Each structure stands twice: as C-alpha cells, then as structure tokens.
C-alpha cells in the first residue's frame, strides 16, 4: 500500500496529518451522534475525545516500532481487552458507594460514563483503524460505521417523527424552527463527510475542486428548502409515535380478559396529551380519564350497556361542536371545575375526559398532522373528603327499578357474597352499615392480598373474576375491577367497571401538560352514591410482579403540550425559553445571507479578474493578462504544482494550449527581464489576442461538462498561483 510506504519515511507523517485529522473528526462526529441517545453529556464528550485519540494513535504508530511487529489479531485482542476492562471499571465506579460518597453520586456517575464511553470509542476506533490499515475490507467497515451513524440519526426523523429519542427535530421544534432545514444540512454534511472519507481512503486528495462543486450543490439544495420548503412527508397513521393501534376500546375483543396484546414494547407509546387550564390535584394520587364503562351483566360478564337509561354520564360518540352530559351530576359542592384540552394521538371511539366530565367541546386542531382530534373538556373533578363519603346512600333517585337491577346483576355464584360479607364482618360498629366502608374494606382486601401480574391463568375460565378472586388472586386491573364490582353488587351497592386511563399525578412534574401513554390504560370499579355520583374506589395491589413504572417523558410531554397550545401561547413559551441571545432563525438567515454574499463576491472577483486585462495599462498587461489565463486554466482544474516553475508548467500545459508557452515566456521576460526579449518587443506583443487564442485552444480540448463546471465554480481563482 502506498500509504504504508510513505509513512515509513517518517518525514511524510506531517503530510499525513491533515487526512488523519479529517478522518478522525468525521468518525468522532459519528460517535458523538451515536452516543447522544445512549448516554449523557460527559459520555458523548468522552466518545468524541476517545475516537480522536484512537485515530491519531493508530495512524501514527501502526507502521512504527513496536506496533508494526504485532499481528492484527493481537492488536484487536488487546483493544477488546481494553474495552471489556473499561466496561468493568465504569460499572465498578458507578456501583461503588465509596466513590459516590467522596464526590457526589452524580459526579461518580459522570466519571463512570466518561470512562466507559472513552474506552468504548477509543477501542472500537483503534480496531477499525487497524483493520483499515492492515486489511482490504477495513476501510469499508469504517465507512459503513459512519454511514450507520448518520442513518440512525436521520431515520429517527423519518415521516416527521418526533421524540424517538429526543433528537434534533425536537430541539428545532422547541425553538420554533422547521427541523427540515437542519436535517437537510445534516444530510448534506453526511454526503460531504462520506465523500471526504472515501477520497482520503483512496488517496485522491487533490480533488478539492470537485468537492467544492458538491458542496455548492448541497448548499443550493438547502437554499431551495429554505425558500420553497419541503414537500410534506406522508405521515403514517400512528404518527411515528406509537406502534400498533392503541385505541383501548376499539381494539378490544369481546372478552376484556383476553386482551393479551399487552405488548410491552408499545407500553410507552403516547396516546393523548392533556393540557390543564385550571389548577387541580387529585386526592388519591392519580388522574382518571373515563372513556366508557362496563355496567350491564350479559350472562357471562359485564359489558357496555345497550339501554338508553343507563350510564347517561357517558358520551359515546364525538360530535363536531359540543356535547354535554345528559345526566345531572350530583355533589357539585365537593367537586372543583377543571377545564382541560385533550389532543388525541391515536384514534378512539369515544371521547374521554378527566372525571367527571360535564361537556366536551370540539376545538380547532392546531396540528392536523399530529393530533387525530382535539377537544376541550369541562370536568367537575372530585375533591371528596372522607367525611363526604361516609354516610352516603347509594343509587340515584331517578333510576328506575330496572336500572337498579341492572347495576346489581352479578354471576350466579354465592361465593362473592360470602367473601364480601366476611370482609365487612369486622367493621367497627359505627361503620357497619355504611356502603363506603363496605366498599373500602373490599378494596383493602384486594390491596393487601392481590398480586398484580400481566400473566395469569384466568383468561379462559368461564368466570375469570371468580377464578381470580377465589384462586391465586393474581391478575391485572380487569380482574381486580371485576371482582370488586361483583362483590359490591353482591352487597347491594350499585357498581360498574370504569374503563379509561389512570395517570399518576407525579407524571405531571409540575407542568400544565400530562402525557397519557398506552401503559396508563386502566379499568377500575366505581360505586354510585346518591349525593356524589360515581365514585372510583380503585384497588391498588401492594404486590406486583411487573414493573409498570415508566421513565417520565417530561420533554415529550412538554413538547406535545406546547404543540396543543394555540400559537400565541406557543410563542410565549418560545419567548420564555432561556438563552435566546441570538435566535436560531436569525443565525440561519445570517449564515445564508453570508454564504450568498461570499458567493457573490467570489463571482465578482472571478469575472473581474478575467475581464480587467482588456482595460488595463500597458505596463500591467503582462501581469493581469497572464493572471487571467491562469484563472482560466485553474477553473478547468489545470494548476501549477507547488514548487513547479512557470516554464515547467507551461511545457506541461503546452500540449493542450500551445500558445500558453508563448505567453508564459513573454510574461517572464516582462517580470524578470527587461521586458524586451531577444526577438520579440514588448510593445508589439498582443496580450489579449494571445489569451484569446489560449481560450480557443482550451475550448477545443475540454469536454463540455468541464467547461460548464469552469464557468460556475466561484472559487477557482483562489487556486491560481
């Protein structure tokens, strides 16, 4: 390999420095991008630094003592050893309590990340570089690596996806900038980087000229996007935010116990975003959004009712304007009025709202591509105290006998009532006849003895609730909700299973927006009290076999919330963002203006230099005409090498343009001699006609595409020497 031969001579390592730096910075940039989503800032910085170090070390030492004596396999093995030891060391640092005690836990975590990513990137880079030096396919691996990094970054934004993970697009959106231009710039950068890397590998370093053309094309593409915009991408149905259809109700099979499509991969998929317009904090620690309810026993289990006079607090369909709940809501005194805006990210059959909704008001959709449907909900959210709940009567006054019966139907299984009466037997005398106390003791039984698990054996039993309740008490919300409801009903308390979403209050994290994710889909038992309406009494098993906690997605929550807000408040939010010393938009505009100015200046200089000899004084002709001729040559890619004399260059170009020899000679006579050669008088030499001749000679020799490139290249004159 030519590379190795030149490197062994020591002196030429200086000439290798630039390509090495170029390559190192490109690979390091791809490390940076790859690590962004996987680690924190210190890890990213470490991977960048580690990659640079690895690149320089390998390039410098691979062909020297003693590294050149070792086999490739040995070097790779040593690097891998470093990698493994780095991982172990970082784990040790993060896990060590002593270090965390000495410095702060955050610092020790940062140090661990730093070491880990530093060694990962240094080791992998060293392996890649060694392969590139020693093997034929090595360089390909390296280029593949860089390509992958760019593809991963860009593909995270395909179809206008956001927050997967929190990436460039989101960053731009938060600042009110169209991410398309940033992504286009990155794409152009990728093209340039890859081209550069390929050229470095094949030692074709003297093609910066074609590079500048490539860059020009990329930038003009960018300019096009800046001014005319991008064609909107085809947004997929799931908006790139969710996996499969998550509509909780719509996709449910007849038997709610058999919705085994609890696919953990999609659990974090966003379902809707809720904006709180009024202050509200739930009493029991969770926000409940009821979409529907199972209240009618159909012989085997509870289902949505088909009677018009039941569940009149539910709204089953969307309307284009507003829809109010037809049933009067009791207990207004112990409820607070909360207005929320909901943006649905996945389609739902029925509107849902913070319990208990009074009316749903359709609102204009601020972003049709993001939100399936947006509406405002006015809710009377419960702020019940214990005193409110105690001593209540159950059932509404306006219920007919049939409705009462429907709310008390349960499977023909005496064990429900037996267990329920057992559970309420030990109540204090003052609460012995209180329905809420009954319900609460049933809930407490389930809390203390139930085991939450997504895997269970009850799905195909005739009565899964019974199988659960009188069996191993292991199941998920459906089982708890159904069991509780059946027991309530067995005691004569009208109850139903509410279906919807329940989101922990802590998820709001102090903001005004709340993200509902698929994992928050929930079912709960509720009881009707005469003066309060439907009250949720939700069993919360203390033992759980699945980790149902999710990382709080505060940034996505904030981002989607800001999107749902109207423009004015979004602008407000933008203004409230820190560090808008100079807005990004301004910087971008400034940069594009600057680029345009540079281009215009470059073209100006280029054509001025070609044109000025015709009007210059005689004594300057020899310089200016010759410079113009050199400009023409260099725009066609014909340049004098460094250190090459003008005569040698002239004889090199002589085949292409014979007159160039003449003009070079005359130029040198004027520049170095007296101007009068032995046979030609300076006064009689016609510079313009000779340079015109050269132009014609060149025109005959060059292909059309080279001529076109020569005409549009604005910087060719910079390479004239």
């Amino acid at each position, binding site marked *: 390999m030519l590379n190795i031969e030149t490197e062994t001579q020591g002196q030429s390592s200086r000439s290798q420095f630039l390509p090495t730096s170029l390559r190192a910075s490109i690979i390091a940039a791809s490390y940076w991008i790859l690590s962004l989503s996987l680690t924190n800032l210190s890890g990213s910085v470490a991977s960048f630094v580690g990659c640079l170090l690895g690149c320089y070390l390998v390039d410098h030492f691979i062909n020297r003592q003693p590294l050149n004596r070792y086999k490739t396999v040995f070097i790779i093995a040593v690097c891998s050893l470093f990698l493994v030891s780095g991982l172990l060391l970082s784990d040790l640092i993060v896990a060590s309590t002593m270090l965390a005690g000495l410095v702060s836990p955050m610092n020790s975590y940062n140090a661990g990340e730093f070491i880990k990513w530093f060694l990962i990137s240094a080791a992998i880079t060293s392996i890649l570089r060694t392969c590139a030096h020693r093997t034929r396919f090595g360089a390909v691996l390296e280029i593949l690596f860089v390509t992958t990094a760019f593809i991963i970054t860009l593909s995270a934004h395909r179809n206008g996806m956001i927050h997967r993970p929190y990436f460039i697009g989101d960053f731009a959106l938060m600042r009110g900038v169209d991410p398309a231009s940033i992504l286009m710039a990155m794409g152009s950068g990728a093209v340039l980087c890859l081209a550069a890397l390929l050229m470095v590998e094949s030692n074709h370093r003297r093609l910066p000229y074609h590079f500048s053309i490539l860059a020009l094309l990329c930038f003009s593409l960018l300019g096009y996007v800046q001014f005319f915009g991008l064609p909107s991408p085809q947004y997929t149905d799931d908006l790139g935010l969710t996996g499969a259809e998550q509509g909780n109700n719509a996709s449910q099979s007849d038997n709610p116990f058999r919705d085994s499509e609890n696919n953990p991969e999609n659990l974090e998929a966003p379902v809707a975003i809720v904006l709180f317009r009024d202050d509200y904090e739930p009493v029991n620690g969770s926000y409940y959004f009821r979409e529907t309810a199972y209240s009618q026993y159909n012989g085997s289990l509870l289902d949505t009712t088909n009677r018009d006079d039941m569940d009149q607090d539910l709204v089953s369909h969307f309307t284009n304007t507003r829809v109010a709940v037809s049933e009067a809501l009791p207990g207004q005194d112990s409820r607070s009025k909360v207005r929320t805006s909901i943006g649905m990210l996945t389609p739902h059959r029925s509107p849902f709202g913070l319990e208990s909704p009074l009316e749903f008001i359709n609102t204009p959709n601020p972003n049709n591509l993001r939100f399936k449907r947006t509406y405002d909900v006015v809710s009377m959210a419960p702020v019940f105290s214990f005193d409110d709940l105690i001593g209540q009567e159950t059932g509404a006054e306006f219920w007919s006998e049939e409705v009462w019966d429907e709310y008390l139907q349960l499977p023909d299984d005496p064990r429900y009532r037996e267990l329920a009466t057992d559970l309420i037997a030990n109540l204090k005398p003052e609460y012995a006849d209180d329905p809420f106390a009954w319900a609460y003791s049933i809930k407490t039984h389930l809390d203390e003895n139930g085991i939450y698990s997504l895997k269970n054996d009850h799905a195909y039993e005739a009565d899964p609730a019974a199988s659960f309740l009188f069996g191993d008490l292991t199941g998920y919300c459906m089982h708890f909700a159904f069991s509780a409801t059946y027991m309530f009903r067995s005691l004569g308390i009208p109850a139903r299973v509410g279906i919807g979403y329940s989101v922990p209050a802590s998820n709001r994290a102090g903001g005004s927006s709340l993200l509902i994710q698929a994992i928050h889909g929930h079912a709960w038992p509720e009881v009707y009290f005469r003066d309060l309406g439907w009250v949720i009494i939700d069993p919360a098993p203390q033992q759980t076999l699945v980790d149902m906690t999710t990382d709080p997605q505060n940034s996505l929550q904030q981002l989607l919330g800001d999107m749902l807000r109207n423009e004015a408040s979004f602008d407000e939010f933008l203004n409230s963002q820190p560090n808008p010393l100079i807005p990004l938009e301004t910087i971008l505009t400034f940069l594009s203006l600057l680029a345009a100015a540079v281009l215009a200046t470059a073209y100006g200089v280029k054509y001025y230099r070609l044109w000025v000899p015709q009007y210059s004084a005689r004594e300057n002709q020899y310089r200016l005409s010759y410079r113009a001729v050199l400009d023409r040559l260099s725009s066609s890619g014909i340049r004098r090498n460094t*250190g090459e004399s003008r005569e040698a260059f002239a004889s090199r170009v002589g085949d292409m343009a014979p007159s160039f020899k003449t003009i070079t000679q005359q130029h040198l006579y004027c520049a170095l001699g007296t101007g*009068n050669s*032995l046979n030609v008088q300076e006064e009689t030499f016609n510079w313009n006609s000779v340079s015109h001749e050269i132009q014609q000679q060149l025109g005959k020799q060059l292909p059309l595409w080279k001529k076109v490139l020569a005409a549009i290249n604005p910087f060719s004159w910079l390479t004239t020497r």
Partner: protein
Amino acid sequence: MVPDSITDNSQLTAAAGSGDDIVDQESSDLEKAAAILNRLGDCVRQQVLGRDNVIELVIIALVADGHVLLEDFPGSGKTTLAKALGEAIVSHNSIGESGIVPFRRIQFTPDLLPSDVTGVPVFDSNSNAFHFRHGPIFAHVVLADEINRTSPKVQSAMLEAMGEKQVTVDNVTYPLDPLFFVIATQNPLDLVGTYPLPTPQLDRFLFKITMDHIDREAELDVLETWQQRRDQCNQTHSITRDEILFARKAIDSSVLIGSSNKSALVDISRNLREDDRVLQGNSTRSMVLMMPALQTLAAMRGRNYVSAQDIEMLLPFVLKHRVELAPGVSDFNKVLSDCMRGPMEQLARGTLHK
C-alpha cells in the same frame, strides 16, 4: 543523473531573423555570445556523443569561470570531452604568443610532486640563470585525472591555481591565462590508496557532475562513428580564446538576475542549513560562484534574464558536493527538493506581483 533540459533554442533562432534596428547593443552582444557558445557546443558534441547535458554544464562552467569535478568510471569519455573542448577553443596565433597550449592532461598519482604540476625553475647554463619552465597547468583546459589519488600537497597546489588563477614557485608568482579551466575527475568507487578531497576543497569546484552510462542509442552511435571522429579529430578549431572572453563579458553585463531569484537562492541555502538532515549547508561563496553560471545558462537558452528553470537545473550540481548530510540520510535530491519547494513557489508566484 543529469535532468533533461528544456531547450527552447529552436524557437529563438526561428524568430531571430525578424530583428530590426530597435534591437539594442546589449541584445545583439548577447545574441553573439549565445551563438559562440552554441558553436562551441556543436564542436564538442561532434566528438562526444550522448553527453549533451554534461557538455552543456561544462561549457557553462567554462564561461562562468568555474571548474568542474567529474565523478565517473574509466573510459566514460571524460578525456575525450576535455580534449574536444580544449581543441575547439584554441586559436592558431595565440599559441606562439603566450606559450599557452589549449589542452593538457595531468594523471595524478601518489608520487606526483607539486612542481610536476606547476612547473619548475631550471638552470640554463647558457644564460647562467634559472628559467621557469611552465608546467602542464599553463593551458586553457586542464584535465586533472583522478585528483584524489595524489597527495594533499599536490592537491593544494592545484587548488591554489584554480582559486587564484596564479602559480607561485620560489616566491615568484606566475599568472595563469584568464581562460583557465580545470576538469578534475575522481572514481567514486575505487577508494583504496586515495586522499579524498575535503569539503572546503570541493567548494572550489563549481559543479560536481556524476555521470551515468550513456544510453543505448548513443553508445551504438559511438561505435558506428568512431573512425569518422578519429579522422576529423584535428579539424575545426572554430572558437578563439578571445571570443569566449567576449561571451563571458557580454553575458555578465546583459543577463539580468532579478532580486527575486537571489532571494530564492538565499532562502534555499538557509533552508538547507536549518534542515535536520543536513550537517553542513552550502557556503555563501557557492552562491556567488553560481551567479555567472546562471547567467550563462540563461544566455544559452536564449534569454536575457535568469529564471526559476535555470536555478532548478543548476542547483543540484552546485550543491551536491557542498552539502554534508547527516548520518543515515542518503537521498540528497529529496532533501534539496524539500528545501527548494517553498522558495521556488515564492519565486514563481512573485511574477504575478509588481
């Protein structure tokens, strides 16, 4: 080792007919000088085949008042070259006047004495006085064969003559002719029993020329024409001593050396001295000696100015024996081209500036 030169003489002579009365005196002198050198070159080239570049360098050295050290192997034509040069120069009438012969060859051996070179006073019994008998050094062209075989004493006598253009014997100084030109040779391989010339003494030679074997066609040509050349050996003494001295003067006065050329030379020297691979750089004297050589080359190429091409062409021959490389560094050409790149680039760029 001698690079191919770009000869643009043809262009020059083709257009030479168009000269008119505006052509000033200097130009015509220069033209005459160039014509003289061309004729001299033609004469020598008739006798020595396949060594055009060496002949060019030797003529440059002759006109530039320098001396040449040839490094080669036996039978490579150095005697033929020196003899052809000496025979081409001399004019018939000058022999009688000054007693200076056109060409002498001195074979240096370990037992040679300085007086064998310079000449010795001999007692003339008729006049009862010592008369100085001129040694072989009193000639226009002296071939000092295998100069490294003789003792340092003889070498120094020879070198004094080369440097000062005079010979001192018994406190009497005898000047040499202004046209005094030494071609010394040494065999680079056969070093047994030799006294290698130290660097300061090498400094007196303008060029050191390392010769390779001539190419196949030229060698064939030599064999084809040897008889013909033997027979015409004594013909065509076409160039007189005075003509060469005229050419020397004309070139000296009318070929311009721009200041950019000079600064390029100085920069190259400084680069060489600062380079880690160089133990000892070249002297200032070497640059001074090089000036007329550059002028002569420019004149031979039909130019009245010195250009970068001339520097590129001559510099290796001027510097190779003057620069001492550090141990372990062998490629002088690479060192030189590294040191030349910057100054030459500046020189080339300079022509676009005022």
